[in-house]
């Protein structure tokens, strides 16, 4: 199946409607999730309404690592199979991941001011996410620094794979170091393999249900949004490359005349 979609022409045909459809679903899901989170879910009894920003913050934090992992797999495919579509996927995902990281950092900072009484603390989780932000910037800078797409693609893929060491550091920073940032409150249950038949119990959550459901809804919405934007970005990139080829062909024809 992957090899089918690895053909740019087939990809373009298959995804013609996928982007807008995913975007519509994302808008609906995000609207519902954010509405429940901001208006229906009860206020936290200690943090009050400030805790509501978590419905934006936690899914964004999950997405910023998820998008980077997506880019790492795209980079690996690009280096092994040297396929242009994998390069385009990585390149298209980078700005989206950067924005998720920025959302995560900004909302975390806004929440930290009333609750921790500081905008920023140099704790391991915050610092490693900031480093992830710079890795995204470096990845995009490498893409724009080269004159040929192929060289840029390979250099960016190598950098992306080197930067992957940061992802487990972010994930387990709250376990390895005693820091201000709290530990994960949502994770796979320890015996999740045995619970595959009961999907509602796969996720082990320390959050009560009224907090968990808007959070997961926003996460699904973010995922749909990422899918929509990445496919639209990829299509735009493929069109841009086709236009480039057409322009060069026209110049070549003019030279012949």
């Amino acid at each position, binding site marked *: 199946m992957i090899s089918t979609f690895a053909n740019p022409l087939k990809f373009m045909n298959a995804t013609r409607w996928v982007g807008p459809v995913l975007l519509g679903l994302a808008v609906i899901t995000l609207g519902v999730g954010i509405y429940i989170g901001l208006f229906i879910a009860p206020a936290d009894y200690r943090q009050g309404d400030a805790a509501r920003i978590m419905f934006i913050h936690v899914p964004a934090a999950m997405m910023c690592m998820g998008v980077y992992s997506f880019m790492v797999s795209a980079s690996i495919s690009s*280096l092994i199979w040297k396929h242009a579509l994998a390069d385009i996927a990585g390149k298209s995902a980078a700005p989206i991941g950067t924005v998720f990281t920025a959302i995560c950092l900004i909302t975390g900072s806004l929440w930290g001011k009333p609750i921790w009484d500081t905008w920023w603390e140099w704790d391991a989780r915050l*610092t*490693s996410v900031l*480093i992830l932000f*710079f*890795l995204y*910037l*470096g990845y995009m*800078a*490498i893409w724009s*620094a*080269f004159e040929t797409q*192929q*060289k840029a693609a*390979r*250099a960016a893929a*190598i*950098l992306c*794979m*080197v*930067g992957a060491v*940061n992802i487990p*550091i972010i994930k387990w920073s709250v376990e390895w170091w005693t820091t201000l940032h709290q530990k994960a409150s949502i994770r796979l249950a320890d015996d999740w393999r045995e619970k595959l038949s009961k999907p509602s119990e796969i996720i082990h959550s320390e959050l009560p249900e009224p907090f968990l459901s808007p959070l997961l809804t926003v996460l699904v919405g973010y995922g749909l949004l990422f899918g929509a934007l990445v496919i639209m970005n990829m299509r735009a990139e493929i069109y841009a490359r086709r236009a480039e080829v057409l322009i060069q062909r026209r110049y070549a024809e003019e030279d012949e005349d």
Partner: protein
Amino acid sequence: MQKQNMAEGVLLPLFFRELKLAWSGGGGAALPVGFYAGAATLTPLALGPATDLLQAAGPGVLFISLALASLLPMERLFQADLEDGTLDVLASSGASMTGIALSKTLAHWMASGLPLALVAPLLWVMLQGPGEAVLIVLGISLLGGLAFFFIGSIGAALTAGVRRGGLLIALVALPLYAPATIFGASALYAAAEGRDWTGSMALCGACALVAIALGPFASGAALKTALD
């Protein structure tokens, strides 16, 4: 088999060629040392000469200066050889790009990184660090410099084909410098305050080992791209 022998015959001479080139040619290898010493000298001018302030800030400033000074030789690490075709000749010798990246980076660390570590104890004492810790400072600077050079070499190889790639190296390499900086600086602070510094220094050494183990592979792959 013969290709293997050729490759072994290339990497060692390459190492000495790089050392010779670095030390001749107007002392270019010493420039990072000048930068390092200059940056450390500016610190008391900016913070004021108060001993307690210098003791509080000195170890951190010293390690940041080491990180930044290690970035200086990176721009020309592979770029010069890529521009004048030396890298093409080396590639056609049958030696692996990983080996070439390892030889060149190690030679440049010997030429510039080792002198940086050697002046670190001097700057340490100038910034009012306790004199009995100078050997520890030397050791931490050796390990930190190795980590910085081998991580920096990835950035250098990625940007070798880019005109004016210097700032790009900094953007690519500085985030990856974070672990070595955290553990190296905390080992320096522990040494300054007479606490146990071995744990942090071991982790700084681990950063150096990971950088040496992975850096040449990433650099080699990037150089192959640059040659295509």
